[in-house]
């Protein structure tokens, strides 16, 4: 890459991964960062604004806004995560604009989910799932758009990280901390021995930087994973210990499935209420900051649902035996993940305490 200190546009900069990429590139001074956001609100935006970084409107569904955000940049790191339409059409707009503006490198954040692998050692030669309206299908389509753009001369690199965790991760840290702190979470006999494939966010940022700066990365796809192979039950135990909680008990397979099936009904009912009832009716039935009796029951149900694995998690996610092999990134880019699980989780626990999630959940002083 030509520029010693490249001008980099990060799309989805108010998200979990985009936020940390922005933070690292800005605070190391290794790049001049344009942090692309799609709206002027949200805690991710507040997080981003703690940096002396240029924040630019970049709704990837608005081609004019994308073109303006991207004008003059050397590198685009595409971290947007949205629904199918956003993932696919947004990527299309971004690649079109990057090609027109002669951007020197585009790094597309895909996902190891494109393999939909159930078992085995999975490297980049494994087939990707068909394009579809699922999350993984949208990433496959995004990759196909990248390869089309590459065929027209755009230098593109595709990254397929596994499960990315770290501070500000709602899915893998906040939600699992809530579950562990609820006192209702377990290890799961017969279901929790699948491989977790966790990568700490800073290791991913290192991988992104290598992909953005190494010529060997052009036109390639790379898996990125963490340094350890751990099972989901390992993850639960070690995160639980990091949060200083009493040891987890193991739940039998039949019991886990039965509870999950029961909670699935409650989960669907809560989703239906959330998605289909008008706000004024919801407020009247459930209350606002001060809940009605029905609202209190719904909140209790919500807590129980959150503290119970879904059938999908038990049968698929926690049971999956696939290992996403990042040997290619290690060999070609010199990628070496630095954070083992205990180091990563210790940072997450410190972050949770800082934001008073731990006290707010009521299980830890």
């Amino acid at each position, binding site marked *: 890459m030509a520029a010693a200190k490249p001008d980099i546009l990060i799309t989805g900069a108010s998200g979990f991964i985009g936020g940390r990429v922005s*933070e*690292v*590139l*800005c*605070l*190391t*001074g*290794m790049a001049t960062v344009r942090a692309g956001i799609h709206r*002027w*609100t*949200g*805690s991710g*935006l*507040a*997080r*981003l*604004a*703690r*940096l*002396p*970084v*240029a*924040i*630019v*409107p970049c709704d990837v569904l608005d081609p004019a806004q994308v073109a303006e955000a991207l004008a003059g940049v050397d590198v685009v790191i595409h971290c947007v995560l949205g629904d199918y339409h956003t993932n696919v059409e947004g990527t299309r707009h971004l690649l079109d604009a990057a090609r027109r503006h002669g951007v020197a490198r585009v790094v597309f954040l895909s996902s190891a989910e494109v393999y939909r692998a159930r078992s085995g050692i999975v490297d980049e030669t494994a087939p990707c799932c068909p394009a579809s309206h699922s999350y993984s299908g949208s990433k496959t389509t995004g990759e196909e758009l990248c390869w089309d753009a590459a065929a027209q001369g755009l230098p593109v690199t595709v990254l397929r990280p596994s499960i990315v965790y*770290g*501070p500000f991760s709602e899915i893998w840290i906040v939600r699992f901390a809530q579950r562990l702190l609820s006192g209702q979470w377990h290890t799961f006999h017969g279901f929790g021995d699948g491989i977790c494939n966790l990568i700490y966010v*800073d290791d991913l*940022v*290192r991988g992104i*930087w290598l992909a953005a700066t190494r010529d060997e990365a052009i036109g390639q796809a790379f898996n990125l994973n963490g340094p350890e192979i751990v099972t989901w039950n390992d993850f639960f135990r070690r995160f639980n210990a990091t949060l200083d909680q009493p040891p987890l008990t193991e739940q039998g397979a039949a019991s886990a499935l039965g509870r999950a099936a029961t909670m699935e009904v409650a989960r669907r009912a809560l989703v239906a209420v959330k998605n289909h009832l008008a706000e004024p009716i919801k407020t009247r039935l459930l209350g*606002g*900051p*001060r809940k009605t009796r029905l609202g209190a029951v719904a909140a209790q149900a919500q807590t129980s649902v959150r503290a119970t694995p879904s059938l999908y998690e038990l049968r698929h996610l926690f049971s999956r035996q696939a290992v996403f092999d990042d040997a290619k990134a290690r060999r070609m880019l010199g990628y070496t993940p*630095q954070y083992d699980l205990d180091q990563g989780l210790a*940072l*997450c626990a*410190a*972050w949770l305490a*800082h*934001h*008073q*999630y731990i*006290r*707010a959940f009521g299980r830890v002083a």
Partner: protein
Amino acid sequence: MATDHMTPSVLARRPPSSQTPTLALIGCGAFAEAFYLPAMAAHLPDVLRTLILVDTRLERARYLAARFGAGEACADYHDVLTRIDGAILAIPHAFHHAAAVTLLSNGVHVLCEKPLTLSAQDAHDMVAAADRAGAVLAANYVQRLFPSNVKVREMLRDGALGRIEHITYDWGSEFTWPTVSGFYFGPDGRRQYGVLADRGAHALDLICWWLGAKPHVTEVRTDALGGLDAVAQIRLQHEGCTIDIRLSWLSKLANRYTVCGSEAEIENNYETWDVLPVRSRSGEVRTLRLPTTKRAYRDYAVDVVADFINAFQTGTAPLVPARDVVASVELIEACYAAAVPFDMPWTKVESVLDGRSQA
């Protein structure tokens, strides 16, 4: 002081013979849309009919004028200076001072959104400009109108809790304010005022108002990394009383305040304004009921506007004169001056790229 009965009484205090004033609402962002305009539409239709909406984005002003039935729209308040009696300033904080001084110097009464200003010198300038012009300069610090907060002030003034030893105030939730212009976060990277200036304006003003004094700053930590602060922890001291405040735009906090005295203590949710639980030293809890019709924050808007109009039409002091909040502006300035970073190991970047570390 303010009570729930204020709305009818304030409205009633407007002299029946007084003319409907011509007001300008300067700044047509999310706050104007969600707070002032619905209240005027519901309770002050005569004021709304002559209201001039002002915004540099003229289309936005026109849109809101048409939607709520305001009198007219324009892009520059200088164009209407001679036609207005009063102005409500709902523009970005950094512009309050210049706009207020111009308006006041032209004899226009001003109701200014919080924070009044971002610097104590600017706040003093504004108050002086109002004094010179003989104009009203009111501030919208709406939490002073909550019956629960009024009651806390009364109890502290009357010594009902004994000697005050400790006050805590936690206010945190994800930043979801639907800012239209993004002014909080400015696109140019030169931002420095965050949650401490925003939510802290209410919290620190309440502390000063409750105590009737300005505490001094003991310790302030923020999470700013060269930009603005999204989380702030403040410790203040006033005589024998320690005050701990935690503010966040990033996560939900306990969202409660406590006022602990030698004889009794109060613990309440910061948005629960109709009850006040008081626990005595013996552990007995007495819940004071503070009847109110207010259900939401925006329900207070009509009180704020009606009181402002009443103040300049009758020559009485507004509920929250700007002069009264200058102490909290000074305190916020002192907090920023004293701020040091939290210990946040997860933000370290030195080894991530094997590159240069933060200077």
